[in-house]
């Protein structure tokens, strides 16, 4: 009980690079959502209550194009399913915590907090108060995301013609910038190519079902490519 603040602050401090990295996305998200015609309350609610950047971006683009509700929910599920992996990986460090802690830390679980906390807790001894460290990273990421979303919303409201300036292009550019560096790995490249081709061919399907079809094809292609590469080099050990 006595040593709350040092680990809390350490968690926030170690998340600093992530905070800086998330800031422009918070602004872009807020601005884009307003420019796509989504009301301010809904934009802020997405950041405050869903709190999952990539699925928020995708939701804005899907809501803007009139996608059916179940498809938006299903896309959210698929895109955020990786959090279940984080949830499972961090469980050993949370098992001893009271339920209210586990319910809270789960709500704030993001890619960034997972990366910071998992790295730290893996090499800490029992003396270290990991729960407060984890909470520090969570609160820093959460407050940061709310702040930059609000700034983006204000920006979107104060410049009403943003949509005409080609802000819808900002979505495409943002997604492309996130994906492109991952394409250096061949199975990921296969996944992206397949998903892109299927999405293009199936773009006229109703309810944006083409998106689901493309995602499935891409994931299957990636897994298959990984398998084939492993068969091709049976004696190679994983060194990286």
């Amino acid at each position, binding site marked *: 009980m006595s040593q709350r603040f040092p680990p809390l602050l350490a968690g926030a401090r170690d998340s600093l690079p992530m905070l800086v990295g998330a800031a422009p996305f918070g602004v872009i998200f807020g601005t884009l959502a307003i420019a796509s015609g989504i009301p301010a309350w809904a934009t802020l609610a*997405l950041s405050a209550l869903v709190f999952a950047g990539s699925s928020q971006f995708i939701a804005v683009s899907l*809501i803007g194009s009139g996608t059916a509700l179940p498809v938006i929910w299903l896309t959210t599920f698929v895109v955020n399913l990786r959090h279940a992996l984080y949830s499972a990986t961090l469980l050993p460090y949370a098992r001893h915590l009271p339920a209210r802690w586990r319910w809270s830390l789960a*709500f704030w679980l993001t890619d960034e907090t997972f990366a910071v906390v998992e790295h730290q807790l893996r090499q800490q001894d029992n003396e270290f108060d990991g729960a407060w460290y984890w909470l520090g990273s969570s609160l820093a990421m959460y407050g940061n995301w709310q702040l930059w979303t609000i700034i983006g919303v204000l920006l979107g409201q104060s410049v009403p013609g943003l949509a005409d300036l080609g802000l819808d292009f900002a979505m*495409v550019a943002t*997604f492309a910038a996130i994906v492109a560096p991952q394409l250096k790995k061949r199975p990921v490249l296969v996944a992206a190519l397949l998903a892109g081709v299927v999405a*293009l061919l199936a773009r006229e399907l109703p309810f944006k079902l083409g998106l689901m079809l493309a995602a499935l094809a891409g994931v299957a292609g990636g897994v298959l490519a990984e398998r084939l590469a492993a068969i091709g080099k049976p004696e190679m050990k994983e060194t990286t």
Partner: protein
Amino acid sequence: MSLQLLLTIAGMIVVTYGIRLSFLVFGHKLSFPAWLSRALHYVPAAVLTALIVPMALAPQGAIDLSPGNAYLPGTLAAAAVAFFSRHTLAAIVSGFVVYGLWRWLL
């Protein structure tokens, strides 16, 4: 529209929080299959590319490879800068510059 939006967000909250709670709160009853964690690795690239490609190649619905489609050079520029520099923000800005110039010149 408003009720629709409310339902959309409510569903997204339930889905996302449910996933995050899964192991941290109900972990003793669950196990994470290895094939699923392998498959998850490809989800972001697949979903994002599935969103990008139709927007960049067919912004009006029909495939448009003409010079009039500024989305295509803009997207390629953003992707190229991100691929070589890994600098996300620089990539987005470069994409925007190419997109803007392209629209302005043509």
